[in-house]
């Protein structure tokens, strides 16, 4: 777990990519991490072909949830919204590149859950429980 706090994770935490809101969001969602009460919001702008053009995330939280969300925004730009709806936990695990302890899994998966909720249009399951 200590290995988790690597420089590139801390960099995403301290300098989150695509942070903020989208005025012209096509879909949005916001969800809470029951473990700590942290909330993440995702705004997506989707073009007519169904491709994600822009993403912004917002919220306050731990390094794991923030860095995971930040990396995730980079992963989904250019993806069809349908594909976002079907993302599995693996996208997060590959992004962060290192084992996450079970107790922190919800932190790591929160951003993905919010993203999938926005893409599906109704509350997505926890990706680690699917």
């Amino acid at each position: 777990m200590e290995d988790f706090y690597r420089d590139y994770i801390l960099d995403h935490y301290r300098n989150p990519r695509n942070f903020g809101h989208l005025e012209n969001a096509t879909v949005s969602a916001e969800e809470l991490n029951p473990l700590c009460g942290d909330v993440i919001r995702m705004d997506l702008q989707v073009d007519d072909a169904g491709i994600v053009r822009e993403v912004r995330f917002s919220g306050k939280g731990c390094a794991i949830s923030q860095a995971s969300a930040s990396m995730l925004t980079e992963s989904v730009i250019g993806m069809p919204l349908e594909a976002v709806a079907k993302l599995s936990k693996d996208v997060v695990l590959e992004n962060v590149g290192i084992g996450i302890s079970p107790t922190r899994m919800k932190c790591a998966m929160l951003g993905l859950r919010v993203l999938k909720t926005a893409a599906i249009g109704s509350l997505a399951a926890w990706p680690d429980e699917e």
Partner: protein
Amino acid sequence: MIHVRERTAQEIRADFPIFARPTGRGKPLVYLDSAATSQKPQSVIDALDTYYREYNANIHRGVYEIAARATEAFEAARARVARFINCAPGELIWTRNTTEAINLVAYAWGNANVRAGDVILLTELEHHSNLVPWQLLAQRTGAVLRFIPIDERGVLVLDGLDRLLDGCTILSIAHVGNTLGTIQPLDRIIPRARAAGALVVVDGAQGTPHLPVDVAALDCDFYAFSGHKMLAPTGVGALYGKRSLLESMPPFLSGGDMIRTVGYERTTFNEPPWKFEAGTSNIADAIAFGVAVDYLADVGLGWIREHEKRITRYALERLTALAPRGLVVYGPRDPEHIGGVLSFNLGDVHAHDVASILDTEGVCVRAGHHCTMPLMEKMGWHATARASFYLYNTEEDVDTLVSALEKAARIFKL
């Protein structure tokens, strides 16, 4: 599940340390009161010990190693118990016992849905725990109680069932009766209750220990049961509820753990099952409950059922020898319809005196009204003695019971 080799009751008995100890009078323990509470195998006792020695920690919100291990074991136990009755883990709420589980339904579902004049249908042989919560719900709401009648052997009379179900909001019924051991024909009752639009609650306190239970096949809405009657520790039970009901129902107990967000004035609740679990759970005992159902599944519910039928049949045979001295067995006579329970009286000797004399021979039976006072009154029994059998009982236990009863008959000059 495939069993390479069936175990014998003697082998099973060796897994239960309590049988290794003689009673205060130096007699072997002949435990015939499993319907009240079962004995525990070593593996269940060990699960508690390991939890407290290795990874005791509060669950769900802890980040550190032992909290992670405790949370995982706790939720894994939920999944095991859920699988044991064929439901999803998200449909299984931990409670203290069957009684709390039934109260949960009566308060949370009942207060929200039952109106004045509604009918709550029970049977005449229910345990107090499946009667009093409904009486109190009826008092709170103005609902009325109806009862499916029983005949003189304690068997349900289903002739008028559709009339009784007419306008019925809730049917709550024991899977297996605890005084006479009667196995109820739920497959003939539940479909008719569903057709009548009633919510179906099953008191499974004597069901899960003895019968393979599949809540999906039963098609009930709620199923309540107790760990302590099925090899698990005291202090833990469970309530199965259909997911959609658990989602729409308001919570019951409130406080820590069952919330999503809390403000000074307003609160939103967690998803089921946690929505119904307030405060620190009985973590250790829930984990041990998971070990208990694994033990039962490993022995095989089919084997247990056959074994109980064997013992019940043997006991019925042996007890007939005492008929000339006034021994009367109540309830149905066919072991196919009995869940390992025999209620009886010995002449005019009070059941308490019978039980006290049996105790001097190391034989543990229950005596009294068995928390079914209305049934006793209806049948005209002042009290009965009750012997109940489980996987660790043997034919020798029955032999000791019979000779202890002979002693009682001698003392009372029958």
